[in-house]
């Protein structure tokens, strides 16, 4: 029994460490990219185009993951692309969480007309296909970091609002909330001390999940050339370019795809791990 618990704990720990480790590595690569990236991510050189990764015949030293059809270093482009991906993940994820969770808390705890308004808004929002909505927004606002972040907030706040609302409603029915109210606590105070701490693990899990989603949305926008700007590399843009030459140079497509996959997976696993850490019963 004790052993089983220990094993579960270790497993949780491993998941947390692996996902956290990958994200940390990625963050370091992104921050230090201008100094440690082996090549200029934008430098084109047709003499070194479509070089294969280091373990294949015909690889050139220094081009670890090969080059694309314009001779740009894939590894360097992935590292620089991580900057955009992580900045979008952090800013858009956090902002979406703040806005969505606040609205969800208010709707779920105060109910009444506030709930009515917020819930109707969520219903209407959910009727839009999200990616098309994002593309439409950026088409109107123009490309750029702000536009990408705003688009993600606008299409995804409902995810937080819905889940947090439901959670706040079930917490609000608990006896300890009634006790706090009987004790004369103000409604807003009750929301912050009684409801919020118990909804927080859910918000944290959703937040990291949202960061993963933000990375995907950024990649999709990059894929259709609507992300930050054309002269900074993005994973989505690389995947789009790699698609054209997948038969002659699969590595141009596959490496950014693997990076994207690992990053999104790590975010969701980190969320699960953190959720357990935040839960006083499991802690």
């Amino acid at each position, binding site marked *: 029994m004790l052993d089983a618990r220990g094993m579960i704990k270790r497993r949780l720990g491993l998941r947390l460490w692996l996902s956290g480790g990958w994200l940390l590595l990625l963050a370091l690569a992104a921050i230090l990219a201008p100094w440690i990236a082996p090549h200029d991510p934008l430098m084109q050189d047709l003499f070194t185009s479509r070089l294969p990764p280091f373990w294949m015949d015909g690889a050139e030293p220094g081009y670890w993951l090969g080059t694309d059809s314009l001779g740009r270093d894939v590894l360097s482009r992935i590292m620089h692309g991580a900057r955009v991906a992580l900045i979008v993940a952090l800013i858009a994820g956090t902002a979406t969480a703040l806005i969505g969770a606040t609205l969800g808390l208010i709707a779920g705890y105060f109910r009444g007309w506030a709930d009515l308004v917020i819930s109707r808004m969520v219903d209407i929002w959910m009727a839009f296909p999200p990616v098309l909505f994002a593309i439409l927004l950026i088409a109107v606002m123009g490309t750029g970091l702000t536009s990408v972040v705003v688009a993600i907030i606008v299409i995804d706040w409902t995810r937080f609002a819905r889940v947090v609302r439901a959670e706040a409603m079930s917490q609000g029915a*608990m*006896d300890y909330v*009634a006790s706090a*109210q*009987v004790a*004369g*606590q103000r409604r807003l105070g009750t929301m912050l001390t009684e409801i919020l701490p118990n909804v927080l693990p859910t918000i944290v899990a959703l937040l990291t999940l949202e960061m993963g989603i933000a990375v995907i949305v950024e990649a999709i926008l990059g894929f259709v050339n609507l992300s930050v700007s054309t002269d900074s590399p993005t994973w989505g843009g690389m995947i789009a370019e790699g698609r054209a030459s997948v038969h002659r140079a699969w590595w141009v497509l596959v490496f950014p795809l693997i990076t994207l996959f690992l990053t999104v997976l790590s975010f969701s696993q980190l969320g699960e791990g953190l959720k357990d850490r935040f839960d*006083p019963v499991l802690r």
Partner: protein
Amino acid sequence: MSAFLSIRNLSVALKGGPRLLRAVSLDVAVGEVRGLVGESGAGKSMIGKAVLGILPHSVEVVAGEIWLDGVDLLRLKPAERRRKVGATAALIPQDPLTALNPSRRIGRQITDRLVDILGWTRADAESRALELLGEVHIPDPARVMHSYPHELSGGMRQRVLIASAFAAEPRLIVADEPTTALDVTVQKQILRLIAQMQARHGTALLFVTHDLGVVSKVCSSLSVLYGGLVLEQTGVRDFFRAPQHPYSRALLAATPQYTDPMAGLNPVPESVIAAVTEEVAQADRGWRHG
């Protein structure tokens, strides 16, 4: 008016729906322990919730007055009402498992109201909380103060809740079936504890229960409810000697006799149910949703 809590013709209804309390009137004197008895759905918990201002969202007060310590709560503004209730009344909830916030330490949860409502310093509130935890026979109160709810057993949590209810020296406590969620053995200890605390602090108690055995142990008077209607109000001794209402008599007869295991159960007869249902319908005649 000598009663500390005086409910006058209180009607509570589902929003846009039928009444759940039908013109309930009852008094609780200073230091009195009044039992509210009835089967599930009789509206006994609803009375306590209406007094404390914690009715569910789907329910509203449609008529009546609730006088607590000389003021009609229903005429106060929400903020004033909260302050008045917070300063004079407290709740011992039904289920100790959901009545403590799982993510906050016990100590904070007991001291909050002393600090927020009575304006005590945190240090004073903490020494008071320690004293109270001792009073409800919790071993090692200092450790419990720093514990999270899930680290305590159900009985311990109910003790904490009782300590917390008495912390601010309220003059009225609503105990909403405080022992139903506990083991039978623990129930007895908790009942004795509530009775002890009540006697020591002289608090008036509105004791919601479906268990007449519990009433006979802790209450001095009781009100019998059915379908949101008060059928009978009397002293506990009179009630057990000679219940007046036919439904009360049937309820008393339905109490299982543990002394004779071969005796079957006596459910309340259909004819009695039909009669009280008719009484409830009678009360609704002439009433229309405001």
